[in-house]
Structure formats: C-alpha cells, structure tokens
C-alpha cells in the first residue's frame, strides 16, 4: 500500500467495501420485511437532525464538566449565586406580570363588550414581532439616562438600568405569549360549562372566575412557561439594559475574558435551569389540556363591562402604547433622522445582504430538514420519534449564547474548514429555529389524513415518493409558512450572530447592537425599524399557530 502522506486510515479495500455494502443491503431488506415500516431514510434523517440539534448543548455540558474543580469553585464563589438571584428574580417578575397582563387582556378582548375588540385582537399580538433588544433600544431612547424623559423632566423618572426597568421592558414585549395561548383557549371554550354555572345561580361575571379561569389554567401555564423560557434565553434586551443575567455573563466570559471553559460552566447552570422548566412544561401538559373540549361552536357569552368600559379601554390603550405605539414612534422618528443623514448607503445594503446570506439558507434548510422528522412523527409515531421530537424542541428552548458557544467548540474541533465562516451562523439559526418550521409543517400535516398516504401507496407509490409526490404539495403552504417564520426569527437573532460572525461580517441585527452600544440611536433605528417591518409580514402566520 502506498503511503499517501497523511495520517488518515488506510483506504478500504474493495472486498471490504463490498462486504459492507452487502451488509447494509441485507440489513435494509430485513428491516423492510418487518412489515409496514417507514423507509429507513426517515428514521436515519431524524436521528441525524436530533443529533445535530443536541450536539452543541451536550458539548457545552461536556466542556463544563472538563473545566476543572478549581474553576467551578472560583465561579461558584464569585459569580454564580448573584447570577442565580438576578436571573431568577427577573424571570419570576416578568413571568408573573406577563401572565396577569396577558390573561386579563385575553379575557377583555375575547369575552367582554370592549369597544373595538376586533382590532385589539391582533394589535395586542404585534409586540411578538418586536425583538426585545429593539424594544430596549426604544426604551433607552425614551427613558434612559440621556433619554427624552430627562430632557423634559430634568432627570429620568426612574432608573431604567435596573431590575424594575428590565422587568418593564421584557413584560411589555413578552405578554403576547400568554395573551395568545389564553385567547386561543377561550375561543375554543365550550360554552356549556358557563351555562351550567349560570344555571346554578351564578352571574356571567361570577362564572368567569368560578369556571372559566380555573379551566384556563393549563393555557395560562403554557403561556407563562413560554415567557419564562424567553426571559431565560434573552440576551439582547438584558445586555442593552445592563442587567446581569446568565446569558450576559456567558457572553462576557467569552468575549471579554476569552474564558470559554468558564463560559461553559456558567452555561451548564443555565442549561440545567432551562431543562427543569422544560420538564415542568411536559409535566403540566401530561396533566391534561382539559380546555380543549369538543362540541359544536357557539358564540361565547359576552360580559357587559358597564361602568368599567372606559377604564378597561384605557388599560388596553396603555398596553398597546407601551408595547407598540411608543416604541414604533420613537424608532420611526430616529430612523427618519438617520435616513436624512444618509444611513441608507451602500454599506447598509451590504448589511442587509449579509442578513439574507445567513437567514435565507437557514430558512430553506429548516423547511427541508423539518419534513422527514415531522413526517416520521406523524405517520409512524414511536418512542424513537417522540424522543427525537423532545430533543429537538429542547434545543429550541436553549439560549442563543449557549448554542453559539457549543458551535464554536464543535466547529473548532471537527469542522475547522467552516470555522469563522457565515456557515456557523446559519448552523446556529437552524438549531435555534428549526422547531418553528417543524410546528408549521406538523400543523399542516395534521390536516392531511394518513389514508391519503395509504391510498398513494396502494396505487403503487413507494414510501419515499409518497412524501415528495403526494404529501408535500398538500402541505406546501404550511411548510412555506414555517420557512417564513424561521426567516424572520433568523433576521432578528442577535446573540449567536454576534458571537459567531466572522470579523467584519455585520448583519442588520449586529448593526442595531453596535450602534446602540455607541449611543448612535439614529443609525441603530434604521436597521431596527426595517427588521420590525419585515417581521410584520408573516405575523398572520404566527397568529395562526395559536
């Protein structure tokens, strides 16, 4: 055998290759003989996707374990207790306030004679498209140490860079998670329960609290868990508001101290917290979503607000103002200023192009990879497909800084030729947002009877081709919707982009961050406003999810 000058394993001899191929063929035949199994490509692809989704996080945990007791001890003494306290108190406050706010708004909009509730219904969901770091930017412009409020009042009304300020900003941008889940549950609510309560002598208003709210508990809980996961993973808003949480600490451990092992240690604690919340989610879901009652739909009972009508209207208006109108107005004013100063130049086009370069491939790949996974889960449900599903969604819940850290580790070691290329950013987007594409495809697939698959097979279509030839055309709108959601999420993604971008590779999100950091609000507002406007386009798709 010739020495080819590298230390790779000797080339496989032809005989061995043939034996291997024969073994694979035999295994495939034996597998197919088991009966009506999915074609083996489906579970293999699913396995690969699940492995891809889990590997960065697992690798971060491994690196944390390898970090050494001394480093753990140092971080434990110096940072961790304080970080735990600040992260958990922020999460608890935001979750509590967003839950109350979201539930109250859902009840008002869906069940009372609040004037204009048809408009509020979707207006209240709009904050979902506003990345909280853009919201934070708007609030810094308004209430920051050098903001408008200071110019008017002489000093800021309250310190924005504080727990209270951060809670305010995160709450007004995360309450839609609770609002949407609760509103959707209310819309499916079986009116008979309420009528039963009324026939027992309660007023409609009393029945609301006696029957409706208790039955809504699972929906409220589901929304609250989404808020908790969001706050735990948020980096942009807390970093801009200079509030210390785990994500911000991980970021600075990596970028400021160049201590990746330390970052891994901090990350592993955040991973543990996130997994605990996810476990809580599974646990609550297992207790049954009894609000999903069947029955013919009837218009729900409408509660007259009476004298409370005006205060209720004011309340909704204040929320809409704080979460949409004011931030958008502030951004628009500054963006106009920025455009007048010539921000929209060739370099800006370059940033937008960079954003497209990483977000588009992520969205296309997310659509392609979601299909086999979702199809396997829907048509051949098994312990395997359920476990893969769970793993993929766990990857989704994890903060972008941790995904980025894991990707740095993995690419550094195993894919050095892709290291420091935009490909790393696309990989991070894929890991962070693939489940959005899966959810959309899954919802579309659920509308297609499995009998159609069987009809196609009965008519001579092999398993592999059923998905492409028959099912895909039917679920294409759902698949594309999922792709659109991934696209806008990727467009707005900040932490992984910041950490993974090659030198000089600025995207729109990165520009918002950099310019805001320097206090160039006009320059930051232009890309921020552009991202928000683009994200508004698929809002309808987002709302259909709930």
């Amino acid at each position, binding site marked *: 055998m010739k020495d080819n000058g590298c230390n790779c394993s000797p080339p496989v001899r032809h005989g061995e290759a043939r034996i291997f191929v024969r073994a694979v063929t035999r295994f495939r035949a034996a597998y197919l*003989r088991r009966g*009506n199994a999915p074609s083996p490509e489906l579970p293999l692809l699913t396995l690969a996707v699940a492995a891809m989704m889990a590997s960065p996080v697992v690798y971060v945990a491994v690196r944390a374990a390898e970090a050494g007791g001394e480093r753990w001890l140092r971080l434990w003494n110096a940072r961790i207790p304080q970080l735990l306290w600040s992260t958990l108190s922020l999460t608890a406050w935001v979750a509590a306030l967003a839950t109350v706010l979201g539930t109250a708004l859902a009840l008002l909009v869906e069940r009372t004679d609040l004037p204009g509730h048809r408009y509020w219904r979707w207006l209240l969901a709009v904050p979902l498209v506003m990345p909280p770091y853009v919201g934070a930017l708007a609030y810094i412009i308004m209430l920051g140490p050098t903001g408008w409020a200071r110019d008017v009042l002489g000093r800021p009304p309250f310190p924005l860079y504080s727990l209270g300020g951060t809670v305010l900003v995160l709450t007004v941008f995360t309450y839609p998670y609770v609002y949407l889940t609760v509103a959707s549950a209310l819309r499916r609510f079986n009116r008979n329960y309420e009528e039963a309560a009324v026939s027992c002598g309660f007023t409609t208003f009393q029945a609301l609290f006696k029957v409706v709210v208790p039955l809504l508990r699972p929906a409220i809980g589901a929304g609250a868990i989404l808020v908790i996961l969001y706050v735990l993973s948020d980096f942009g808003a807390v970093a801009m508001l200079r509030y210390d949480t785990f994500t911000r600490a991980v970021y600075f451990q990596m970028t400021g101290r160049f201590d990746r092992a330390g970052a891994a240690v901090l990350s592993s604690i955040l991973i543990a917290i996130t997994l605990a919340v996810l476990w809580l989610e599974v646990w609550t879901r297992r207790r049954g979503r009894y609000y999903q009652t069947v029955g013919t739909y009837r218009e729900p009972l409408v509660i007259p607000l009476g004298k409370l009508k005006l205060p209720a209207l004011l309340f909704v208006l204040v929320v809409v103002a704080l979460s949409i109108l004011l931030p958008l107005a502030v951004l628009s004013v500054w963006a106009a200023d920025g455009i007048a100063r010539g921000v929209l130049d060739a370099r800006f086009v370059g940033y937008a192009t960079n954003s497209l370069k990483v977000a588009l491939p992520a969205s296309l790949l997310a659509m392609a990879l979601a299909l086999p996974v979702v199809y396997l889960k829907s048509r051949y449900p098994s312990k395997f497909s359920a476990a893969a599903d769970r793993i993929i969604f766990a990857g989704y819940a994890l903060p972008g800084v941790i995904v980025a850290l894991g990707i740095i580790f993995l690419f550094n070691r195993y894919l050095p030729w892709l290291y420091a290329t935009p490909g790393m950013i696309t990989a991070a987007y894929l890991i962070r947002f693939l489940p959005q594409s899966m959810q959309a495809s899954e919802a579309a697939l659920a509308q297609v009877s499995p009998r159609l698959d*069987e*009809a196609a097979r*009965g008519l*001579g279509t092999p398993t592999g081709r059923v998905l492409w030839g028959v099912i895909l*055309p039917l679920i294409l709108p759902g698949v594309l919707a999922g792709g659109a959601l991934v696209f806008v999420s990727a467009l707005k993604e900040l932490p992984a982009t910041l950490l993974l971008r090659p030198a000089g590779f600025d995207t729109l999100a990165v520009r918002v961050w950099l310019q805001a950091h320097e206090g160039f609000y006009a320059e930051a507002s232009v890309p921020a406003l552009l991202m928000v406007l683009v994200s508004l386009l698929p809002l309808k798709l987002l709302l259909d999810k709930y």
Partner: protein
Amino acid sequence: MDAIQIIDVTKTYARTAKPAVSGLSLTVKPGEILTLLGPSGCGKTTTLRLIAGFEAPDSGCILLRGREVAGRGSWVPPERRGVGMVFQDYALFPHINVARNVGFGLKSKSGREEAVKKALALVGLEGMEARFPGELSGGQQQRVALARALARNPVVVLLDEPFSNLDADLKNQMRREVVTILKEAGAAAVLVTHDQKDALAVSDRIAVMKDGRLEQVGTPREIYQYPDTVFVASFVGRSNIMEGVMAGDGISVITEVGTVLCPHTHGARPGERVMISIRPDSFEPDPDGRLTGLITTTVYGGDSVEAEILVEVTPGVKKTLMVHLHPEAGTVKGETVRFRILPDFVAVIRN
C-alpha cells in the same frame, strides 16, 4: 387460482396483549365479493390492512393470486401488491382533479387517458374529469374512489366501510351500484362493514368475525338462515336462542317450546344437548298452531312488525319469543295469537 389466500395469520399490535387477528384462514375466489362482518374491534379492518400491506402479520402468510406477499421471509410492500383500495373517507387527493385522481396509479403515459376514461365510464362519471374532489357529492366521491381503485386492473379491490358515510337513500343505491360495478370489472373484492344489512345485500359470501377469529363463512342466506354460533345468530339479524336436546330422529330438537324441526343440525347426534336459533321469521301465525302467546310489545317496522310474545311453555313457566308478523295481520298489544314454527330459519348453533 384463488384471488386471496390467508393462511393461519396472526397479528398483535404493539403494546396490546390480545391479538387483533388470530389464526385466521380465508380464501377469496376470483370475481367474488366477500364481506368481513363484525362489531368494532373484531379485527376485520386489520384483516383488510393486512391484505393491503399496511400491516404485516406476525405469523402465517398471505397469497395474492398465488404469489406470497407476506409470510415467513417474504414481504411485498403495498405499492407492489396490485391491490386497489377504497377508503372509508375515500382519501381522494384534494389537490388534483378527478381524472388525475383516477389516473394516479397509472405510471406509464400511454393508455392512461383511455384507462381513466374506461374507469370513469364504469362508475358512470363521464364528463366529470375536470372536477375536484371537493366539488363532488358523497356518492360521486365514492365512485371516483372506486374508479381509482379499479383503474389499475387490480388483483383484488378492498373496500373499508364503503357505505358508512352515506345517508340511507344513497346507501341503498350505492349498494346496488357497487355490486354492479365490481361484477362488471370482474375484480375480486373484500369489503369491511359492521352493518349486517350492507353485508347481506352485497356479498357473495360473508365472513363473520369476533375477537380476531372467524366465526362463520358462508353465503348471506347460509349466514342468516343457518348461523353456526350464538354470536352469528345474534349479530346478524335477531334470533330466539334456546337450549334443547337432539331428538331421536336426528332432525329435530326438543326444546321448552316443543319439538322443533331442524334439518340443519351441524352433525349433532341424538340425545346431545344443543343450542338452537329460531329466527323471528320462522314463526307463522296459524289458528291450528301449537304455540299460544300474548302479544306484549310491538315495534312497527314498515314491512313487518316485530312483536314480543309471551308464551306459556309449561303450566306456570313463561317465555318471551321474538316474532315477525305481517303488518296487515292486525296485531294489537294484549291480543292472543296462535302460531307454528317453520323449519326454514332454524339451526343448531355452537356457543
């Protein structure tokens, strides 16, 4: 050669203890319409899916026109079995029109148009080629589904609860049409239903299933007139079931309501204790009849009246019998009637 041979097939679903189908053997002859009849959970749909190839048997084997498609070491996937299937909800592809639905399984372009035309003519839907499934009525959708199943000249057509989604009027019409179409196409067909009326109306033979096992296979007349088992007697139609002893002549049974002539003995020997099924149709009002009873309830059914009659079998011992009476014979609750038992709808049955 038989169109379908099922030999000792057993299938247990994962995570269930009881087999869905157990030790099932059944053959379907070419051109024959066989109905699998039974209550829900009896394994009839599983049997259909086993033939189609959507499930694989744990043991036993299945042959389609002599070719083994499932069995020890062999497996032909559904797409290569040449089976046409009509689904309960029809499963028409909603995104393509009628012509493309019917032609879906025809791989080669040549002759496709002709085959689609032929299939549509067979089901009486000429001119509907460009319609989409959503624009068709239930009966039309079913005909398209049938045309699609027949377009490939399948070895066998499988129909899953074909009439359950149709209203009563259409049901009657489609029963007749489906039989005509299948007979014209000359295809063997296996049909699954839980509705005995479907089964009696369309089948050449009926296979009654219970708990994954075959209870009885026979022509509709055999099944109805001479049920083999208590289950068949009570599931297909209604019946009076009672105990008795075979009389010495070997063709009659001594029961509490007297000696009943019963030529269909299933080989029971004189003196043996047996069960006997007497259909309500076996009773004929007769002023000289042996049995006298009091009408306790009547249910008017249009073409006949189903009455319950309290008969005093021996002094002090009374028994309720279910009897079909002609609606014209003035039947009033509280009236006393005399009648006799005809041997036409009487059979010795197993438990």
